[in-house]
């Protein structure tokens, strides 16, 4: 059996199945089982790739190497934990009368389809299909964001759709230009959009076209990553969608978009002399980081705040990849992993917290540690982790990024310092009173799933202190591929 | 190391201090009376006082704690130590290495802390007022004294009082302007530290102006005797320190017993002059308001620092 085929097959089929069977008592479990199956297949695929090296699938249209298998594993894992989390969460939402059975059906099927599109985007070798999958991921999540059908969620979904649609149209223009450049070298074959072919001839691609193409790709996919000033859809979509969706948007979709940029950056770097792509990314990264940090201090809605935090971290990661080089790439990959795990854990905790208190306004949430110590501690530790406090793993990557920046781009460090400081003050100043203090407790109809929160945080903690050697090799391999 | 004559000299110096200190107080009192055209009290009045106080019962306030009772002994012990290490007759003092000039300031500080705490112990209005004022005087006087000592220590390249005195005594006669600054500062500090006019008035019981007296209001009997004795020891110590630092001639340098004996009349003479001058100062000055005291001591501090700087500017040969 081919792990890869199974991995793509399960979410597609289960998505269809969930649409057909509708909302049943066991539907959430089916969702979890499907995600678990995807995760197992992804794990199997990962082991296979780590052991045997890169491979193709479906002719040359899919290509799995150490770079994307890493994202695949991460996506499948977070997909699994999110599905576990969403079980009791969505039931509670239904009890609270926010959702109907039909919506829950839509949610589950779209969730699986969303996983499918992301996995396709991650594994495809064809930059055109990558684009198609990204657009499809947008479409599925638009429906997820507007799940509550409230004016706010509709507005958020509309903005999400239009902004990301336009963004991704620009990415398509970039892809066309890329094809245009590739065609001159590879000829009128179907191979001219295959990354593996492109990367072999990247030195011969016309620099002028590649520069233009990269600008379009960066602006296009960058909209999806949430780079400022293209980020405007992101806080709305995160804040108004259901929390599991916020978790996967923040933890996974942003990563996938950034992955697309990274694949293109490899080509641009090969074609364009100098550090054109890297400089652009560094500029965007720093600007995003700074802007997001200042946004943070003005937030009132907890999910919105953590959405800005995601923007901030995406800025930092983009900056890291912009610097380039094995260390920075490694740090960037590590930071993506840590951010995905931590941010989704935070959203899980936040989800339960908002359900408990019935509000997303931070000033109305108090004393979580008294309502439920585990949620309280989960949110507190998750926040500290995302703020880069050791011994959590986010610090490990921030450590590498900061020291590397200090060494190679010392001019950037004051900006980094300022942004991280402001972000710390903003987030921590708001989360601390939410967790601490006094409150009146309320019980939820369905006991929250706390395991995913601490599972994620446990992994993040472990990775902060000890990164297993095979993981290191894998990361190094991926970082090396990025050049 | 420690010679027999040194030990003898040390013991002698301590005994002399214990004996002479009340006399010095008496002498100053007498001089003051003369200068103010009053009939003078007997020269030995302090001794009578001590005798009387020792024989009286101790009357303790209800709120007094064990610290209150221990303080006079601690203060007395501190003053004895101070007198032991200041070369009054000879510089050959076995106890001298125990505390150099900085530690000497520390000894005075320790005594001050104890007396202030004791003053606060009973919990009366005047007691805490006195304690506070004493600390106010102290925190300005102490650094000024330290600076004076620094100036001299720089000249002598030592903070050991004995070494300073030896260096000062042995030097050729050169005019050190810094010493003038230091001397004036030292005088100011001494006046403040010993509760003399213009900072405090040892003879007053006018409640709102007093410092030292306010602190010891609740003491009686032997405790009061010890405190009074310690106060006179302090004045003696300051006088000897001033004399030793600024007029060191005549203090026996070695362990020769003859020189030591010869130093006694000279010391008495110098103390008599010093006491008289103190009386003069007290007579021609009026007591200041309490909030003038910081300015007064601040001036002392400033002068001492100036002395130090002048010393560095004009007299260093680096």
């Amino acid at each position: 059996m081919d792990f890869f085929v199974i991995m793509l097959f399960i979410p597609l089929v289960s998505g269809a199945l969930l649409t057909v069977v509708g909302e049943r008592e066991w539907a959430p479990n089916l969702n979890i089982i499907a995600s678990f199956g995807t995760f197992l297949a992804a794990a199997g695929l990962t082991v296979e790739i780590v052991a045997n090296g890169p491979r193709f699938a479906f002719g040359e249209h899919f290509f799995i190497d150490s770079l994307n298998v890493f994202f695949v594993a991460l996506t499948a894992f977070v997909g699994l934990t999110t599905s576990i989390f969403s079980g009791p969460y969505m039931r509670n939402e239904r009890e609270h009368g926010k959702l109907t059975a039909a919506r829950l059906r839509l949610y589950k099927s779209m969730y699986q389809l969303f996983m499918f599109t992301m996995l396709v985007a991650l594994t495809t070798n064809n930059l055109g299909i990558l684009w198609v999958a990204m657009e499809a991921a947008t479409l599925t999540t638009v429906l997820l964001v507007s799940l509550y059908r409230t004016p706010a969620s509709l507005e958020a979904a509309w903005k999400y759709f239009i902004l990301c649609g336009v963004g991704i149209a620009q990415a398509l223009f970039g892809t066309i230009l890329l094809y245009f450049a590739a065609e001159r070298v590879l000829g009128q074959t179907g191979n001219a959009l295959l990354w593996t072919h492109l990367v072999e001839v990247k030195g011969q691609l016309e620099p002028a076209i590649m520069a233009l193409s990269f600008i379009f790709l960066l602006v296009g996919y960058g909209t999806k990553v949430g780079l400022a000033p293209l980020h405007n859809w992101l806080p709305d979509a995160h804040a108004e969608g259901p929390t599991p969706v916020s978790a996967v948007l923040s933890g996974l979709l942003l990563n996938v978009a950034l992955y697309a940029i990274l694949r293109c950056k490899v080509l641009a770097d090969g074609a364009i002399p100098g550090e054109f792509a890297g400089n652009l990314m560094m500029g965007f990264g720093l600007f995003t980081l700074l802007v997001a940090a200042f946004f943070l201090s003005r937030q009132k809605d907890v999910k919105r705040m953590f959405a800005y935090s995601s923007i901030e971290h995406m800025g930092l990661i983009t900056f890291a990849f912009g610097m380039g080089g094995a260390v920075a790439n490694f740090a960037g990959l590590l930071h993506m992993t840590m951010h995905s795990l931590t941010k989704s854990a935070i959203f899980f905790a936040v989800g339960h917290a908002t359900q408990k208190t019935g509000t997303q306004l931070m000033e109305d949430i108090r004393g979580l540690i008294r309502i439920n110590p585990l949620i309280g501690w989960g949110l507190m530790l998750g926040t500290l982790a995302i703020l880069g406090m050791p011994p959590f793993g986010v610090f490990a990557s921030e450590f590498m990024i900061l020291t590397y920046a200090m060494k190679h781009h010392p001019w950037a460090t004051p900006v980094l310092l300022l942004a991280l400081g402001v972000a710390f003050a903003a987030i921590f100043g708001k989360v601390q009173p939410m967790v601490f203090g006094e409150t009146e407790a309320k019980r939820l109809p369905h006991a929250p799933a706390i395991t995913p929160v601490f599972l994620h945080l446990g992994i993040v903690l472990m990775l902060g202190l000890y990164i297993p050697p095979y993981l290191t090799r894998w990361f190094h391999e991926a970082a090396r591929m990025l050049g | 190391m420690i010679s027999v004559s040194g030990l003898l000299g040390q013991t002698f110096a301590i005994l002399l201090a214990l004996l002479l200190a009340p006399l010095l107080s008496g002498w100053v009192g007498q001089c003051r009376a003369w200068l103010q055209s009053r009939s003078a009290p007997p020269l030995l009045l302090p001794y009578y006082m001590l005798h009387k106080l020792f024989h009286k019962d101790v009357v303790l306030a209800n709120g007094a704690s064990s610290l209150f009772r221990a303080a006079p002994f601690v203060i007395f012990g501190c003053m004895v130590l101070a007198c032991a290490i200041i070369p009054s007759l000879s510089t050959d003092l076995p106890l001298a290495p125990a505390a150099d000039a900085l530690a000497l300031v520390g000894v005075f500080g320790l005594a001050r802390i104890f007396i202030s705490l004791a003053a606060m112990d009973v919990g009366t209005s005047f007691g805490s007022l006195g304690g506070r004022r004493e600390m106010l005087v102290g925190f300005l006087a102490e650094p000024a004294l330290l600076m004076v000592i620094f100036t001299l220590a720089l000249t002598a390249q030592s903070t050991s009082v004995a070494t300073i005195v030896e260096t000062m005594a042995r030097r050729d006669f050169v005019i050190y302007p810094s010493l003038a600054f230091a001397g004036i500062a030292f005088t100011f500090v001494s006046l403040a530290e010993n509760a003399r006019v213009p900072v405090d008035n040892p003879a007053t019981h006018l409640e709102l102006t007093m410092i030292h007296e306010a602190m010891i209001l609740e003491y009686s009997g032997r405790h009061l005797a010890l405190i009074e004795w310690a106060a006179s020891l302090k004045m003696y110590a300051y006088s000897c320190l001033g004399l030793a630092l600024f007029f060191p001639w005549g203090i026996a340098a070695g362990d020769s017993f003859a020189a030591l004996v010869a130093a006694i009349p000279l010391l008495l003479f110098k103390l008599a002059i010093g006491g008289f001058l103190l009386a003069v100062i007290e007579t021609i000055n009026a007591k200041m308001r309490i909030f003038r005291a910081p300015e007064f001591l601040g001036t002392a501090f400033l002068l001492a620092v100036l002395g130090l700087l002048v010393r560095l500017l004009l007299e260093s040969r680096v």
Partner: protein
Amino acid sequence: MTSLLPIDTLLTAACTWLAIGLLGLVAPRNTRFISKTLFPLGALVGVLVGLVALGSLGGPAQTAVLVIGLPDLPFHMRLDNLSAVFALLLGFVSAGISIFAAGYFRKGEGTAPGVLCLEYHVFLASMLLVLLADDAYAFMVAWETMALSSFFLVTTDHRHEEIRRAGFLYLLIAHIGAIAILLSFAVMTGGAGDYSFAGMRSQGLSPFWASAAYLLALAGFGAKAGLVPLHVWLPEAHPAAPSPVSAMMSGVMLKTAIYGLLRVSFDLLHETIWWWGVVALAVGLVTALFGVLYSTVQNDMKRLLAYSSIENIGLIAVGIGLTQIFHAYRMEALAALAMTAVLYHCLAHAGFKSLLFLCTGSVLHATRERSLGKLGGLIHRMPWVAWLALAGVIASAGLPPLSGFVSEWLLLQSFLFSPGLPHPWLNMVVPVAAALVALVAALAGFAMVKFYGIIFLGQMREPGLKDAKDAGPWEKSGLVWLALITLLLGILPSTVISRIDAATRQLLGTGLADKLEQQGWWMLAPISPERASYEPVIFLVTIAVALLLGRWLVRHLYHGRVRRTTAWDCGYYFQGPRAQDTAEGFSQPIRRIFGPMFRMQRHLPTARDTAPYYTVKVEDHFWYWLYLPLAKLVGRVSTLVTILQGGRIAVYLMYSFVTLLVLLLVARP
């Protein structure tokens, strides 16, 4: 298996602390098990750490590499003499605090005891790891874990708004400081990318980059130590924390910052530039003066002590600055003297300040009161605490014969021998600095008299104080332990210095031990006995003999009758507790003399007031000069930035469009 090296023992100790902490989670609500079993165990480990560190002093440096850490950067550990001195401090002082804590933590005060136990022991272990860390990553991990665990300890009683605020401020400044430290390390790695300390040592940085590294380290470690103007968290966090935690933070944690500063400036940076010393000296002086002045006007006993800690850290920084100046001019003997003063003051302050904080803990438990204005006369009800606190007070005031005096004496000595520096400006400035140090020392006495006098002496200001109970046996033993440390450090300086001299020699290449060993153990004469000497034992014995002899004579020659009656007080009729000085009243002279140093809001009663009252509120200028404007600035920028998110989709599209256009027009490969 080879024999167990000290470093292995210390690492095991750190693990044991962690394990003890985790054990606390087994039965998080079982106060008895946790306080009477786990905390004493922790104390035992502390003693062990102290002994091992003591034993390893003077030996060669030992290293270890752990499996954990980053892929290319496993945790490097190293025990050298500098770490050993501070590990010694950590071990012995924490032992006393843990013993005290065994009696202190009770049910129903904030966080569950089990969680508290975890936080506390993680705090201990992380401090030990900070001292042992030998690469940037291990150091930062341990450093921030320390900050984090102490943050949770500070917010133990998180129900109070101001405690949460204090914790937030603390963690914020600690984190910003940590980023500065991180950048400093990054600079020190140079281009090599080797983050181990060994790699940093071998870097020959240019003066510019070395200075950058030093200044970053000064800012970073200064934020943790409480150097002005990064001190603001300290007077908030210390009062907020439970007393054993305040003691640990003030006594031990601040010293880890000093350790870091020493490590960077004398070990990792191979060259010292003279003006670094001037910077440290100036910052130290300002800090010391600021700290002591503010400590005199505080009305909360723990705030008073917190400001006093700021003062002491300032003095330590002065010493470091002096050492750097001497070291830069190759005057190694003097540098060694100043360095000894620094190390000694670290030890001394750790002892007496934790002693004092623990005493406030006992007072707090006995009276539930932190405000000085509501205490008084506790010496009658709590004699143990009172007399032990007196030891701390005397040491803190820098008076002989206790520990504080020794370090101050050494510091002044090193000032005294400073002339001869080949720099005329320094020659002039340094004595003035000495004068300020003297002033600070004297003011510290004022603050301490206020602290002690108002809490323990006088009449009880509140009727409730009559029920105050003295500390329990566990608390007492902790206090006695720390008082003993203070006493021993006070009277055996020569012995102690000849032990810690190994660290001085490691950092500067020369030390004081040779000279000290020529003289007896009782004598402290760092240069030569003719130049300066101090014999605390003789000093103490002389005073004691005079005291006892006096007492004996008085007892035997005169009768020893004592009568009790009401106080005399010049015959003044009203003698209630309100007649005494209040805490505000006591510090009135300071407020008057140093008025411009404080930001004061005063209300003075007039003669016509029907209900006259007097209030004074003293605040920190730095809030208004630095922090509030900064916060306002961030707020303004945030307001500007949020314009970006105006809600109109057309505008959002335009951002995207303009970005694209700008890139198309401007960006060129």
